[in-house]
C-alpha cells in the first residue's frame, strides 16, 4: 500500500524548513568555527581550536559575558514582581482585567519602539531626571552614557518589557489551582500566607523553575534592547552584539561561529540540567 507513507508528505514542508534553516546552519556553524573565513572568499583556512581558545581566554570576551549578569540579576526582580502581582490579582476581582492588561501590555510592544521610549525616558534632564527631582534626587544623570550605570538602565528596561509575560504565566498557573482548595484551607484555619505557602507555591513550582531557566538563557542571549539603545557602547556590549559585530562588521565568520557554538552549548546544557531537576510531568506532544 502506498498509503502507509503519506504522513511523510504532510510532514515534508515543515521538515524541509526545519532542516534547511536550523539544522544545516547549526552544522555549518560548527564547521566554520574550526576555520578562519571572511564569508566571501571561496576558500577557508583551518584554524583548529584557535577560535575557541580566543573566545574562552581573551579578556574582551569575558567582559561581554559578564554583562549578562546584569540581566540575570534583573530577572530575579522580574520574577519577584511578577509573582507578587500574580498573587495579588488572584485574590482580587475588582479591576483585575484592567490591571492584568496594563501589566502585560509592554510585552506586546515592538522592541524598537520600546528602545526609543526608554531612550527618551533616560535622556539627561528628561523624564526620569524630572521625576527623581520631585522626589528630592536632583541633578541630571547620564543614564546610558555612564558605563557605571548604563547596564542597570538597560536591564531595567528589560524588566519593564518582560515582567508582564512572567506575570501572565504565573497568574494562569495559579488560576488553574482548583478554588475549593482555598475554601477548604480557610475552614481549616489557614490564613493568606498559609494558602500561599502550601497551596499556591507547590502549584506553580514548575512554572517558576521554567522561568529561571528562561532567565538564564535569556540573559545570555540579550541583543535587541542594548543594540537599539546604545549599540553596545559604554560597556553595554553583550555576547550576541559582539558575535554580530564579529560576523557582520569584522567579517570573522569562524570566530563568530565559535562564539555562537559556545552559547548554544551553554543553553543546551542549562536546559538539560533543568530537565533533570524539574522533570516534565507530561509530554503532551504526541
Amino acid at each position, binding site marked *: 500500500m502506498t498509503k502507509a507513507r503519506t*504522513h*511523510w508528505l*504532510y*510532514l515534508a*514542508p*515543515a*521538515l524541509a*524548513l*526545519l532542516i*534547511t*534553516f*536550523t*539544522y*544545516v*546552519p*547549526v552544522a*555549518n*556553524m560548527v564547521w566554520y568555527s574550526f576555520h578562519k573565513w571572511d564569508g566571501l572568499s571561496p576558500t577557508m583556512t583551518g584554524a583548529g581550536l584557535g577560535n575557541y581558545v580566543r573566545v574562552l581566554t581573551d579578556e574582551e570576551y569575558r567582559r561581554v559575558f559578564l554583562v549578562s549578569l546584569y540581566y540575570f540579576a534583573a530577572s530575579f526582580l522580574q520574577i519577584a*514582581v511578577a509573582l507578587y*502581582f500574580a498573587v*495579588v*490579582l488572584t485574590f*482580587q476581582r475588582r479591576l483585575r482585567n484592567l*490591571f492584568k492588561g496594563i*501589566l*502585560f*501590555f509592554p*510585552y*506586546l*510592544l*515592538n*522592541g*524598537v*519602539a520600546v528602545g*526609543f*521610549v526608554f531612550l*527618551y*525616558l533616560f535622556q539627561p534632564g*528628561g*523624564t526620569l531626571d524630572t521625576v527623581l527631582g520631585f522626589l528630592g534626587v536632583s541633578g541630571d544623570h547620564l543614564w546610558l552614557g555612564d558605563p557605571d550605570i548604563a547596564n542597570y538602565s538597560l536591564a531595567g528596561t528589560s524588566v*519593564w518589557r518582560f515582567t508582564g*509575560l512572567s506575570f*501572565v*504565566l504565573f497568574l*494562569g498557573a495559579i488560576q488553574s489551582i482548583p478554588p475549593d482548595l482555598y475554601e477548604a484551607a480557610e475552614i481549616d484555619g489557614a490564613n493568606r500566607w498559609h494558602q500561599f505557602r502550601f497551596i499556591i507555591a507547590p502549584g506553580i513550582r514548575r512554572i517558576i523553575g521554567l522561568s529561571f531557566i*528562561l532567565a538564564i*538563557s535569556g540573559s*545570555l542571549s540579550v*541583543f535587541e534592547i542594548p543594540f*537599539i539603545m546604545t549599540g553596545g557602547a559604554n560597556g553595554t556590549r553583550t555576547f*550576541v552584539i559582539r558575535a554580530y559585530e564579529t*560576523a*557582520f562588521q569584522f567579517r570573522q565568520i569562524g570566530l*563568530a*561561529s565559535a562564539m*555562537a557554538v559556545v*552559547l*548554544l552549548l551553554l543553553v543546551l546544557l542549562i536546559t538539560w540540567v533543568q530537565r533533570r531537576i524539574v522533570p516534565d510531568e507530561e509530554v503532551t*506532544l*504526541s
Partner: protein
Amino acid sequence: MIRIGKWISLIGAALVVLAPLVVVLFAAFKTHSEYATTGALTPPHDWFHLANFRTAWTNGAMLRGFLNTTIILVISLTGTVFVGTLAAYAVNRFQFRLKRLVLGLFLVAALVPGVTTQIATYQIVKSMDLVNTLWAAIVLFLGTDIVSIYIFVQFMQSIPPSLDEAAVLDGATRFGVYRRIILPLMKPAIATVVIIKGIAIYNEFYIPFLYLRSPGLNVISTALFRFKGPYGAQWEVIAACTMIVILPTVVIFLLLQRFIYTGITAGATK
C-alpha cells in the same frame, strides 16, 4: 492596611508601565520650540498638532514599512497555517516509527537561540540569492516553529478521531479528511497562532535588519530604527514615529485580548 498597600502597589505598577509611554505621547504632539521649552511631563499645548505625525509618516516612509510588513505577514502566516496544520495532522493522526525522532527534532530546534545561528543561516539565505528580498524574511518566519505546531497538535487532540473514520467510510481520502474535517474545525487554534505569530513578526527586528538592507525593503521595525539617524535631534518627530508603530499593537490588544493570553500561555510553557 494590607488592602491599602495592595492598591498602592497596583496603581504604582500601572504608573510605571504607562508613564514612559504617556510622556512619549505628549512629546509627539508638541511643536519643536514647545518641545525645547517645556518639561517632559507637561502635556502638549495643542492635542491636534499633527505635523510631527505627518513628517514621520512621509519622511520615515512608514507607508512602505507597513506595506512590506503586511506582505511578509500575509504570506508567512498563510504558510505557517498550512505547514503547521499539515505537520500536526501527520503527528496527531498517523502512527509511524520515527515519530519520536521527528518530534525531538522540532523540540531541540526550539532551544537553539535564533540570534546566534543567523551567522550561519545568513550564508544559506545568501546562497539562495534571497538576501535583500522580502522572501528572506518570509522563509525564515515560516521555518521551525514548534510553538505553532504544538498549539495545533494540542487542539487536534480534542477533535474526535471518529469524525475522521466516519468521513473515510463515506469515501473521503486522508487528505480530504484534513481539508474538509480537520482544517475547518481548527479555526480557533488557527486564530490563536495567527495572532501570536503575527505580533511576533510585526515586532521582529533582527531578521529584517540583517536581511532587508535596502531602504525600499524597510519593515516597521527597521523603518523606525533607521529613522533615528537623520532625526536624532528632533525627538518630537521620533516620538510621533514611535507612536505610529505602537498604535496597531494597542488596537490588536484591545480587540483580541483573550486569544493573546491563551496563545502566550500555550507558547511559553511548551
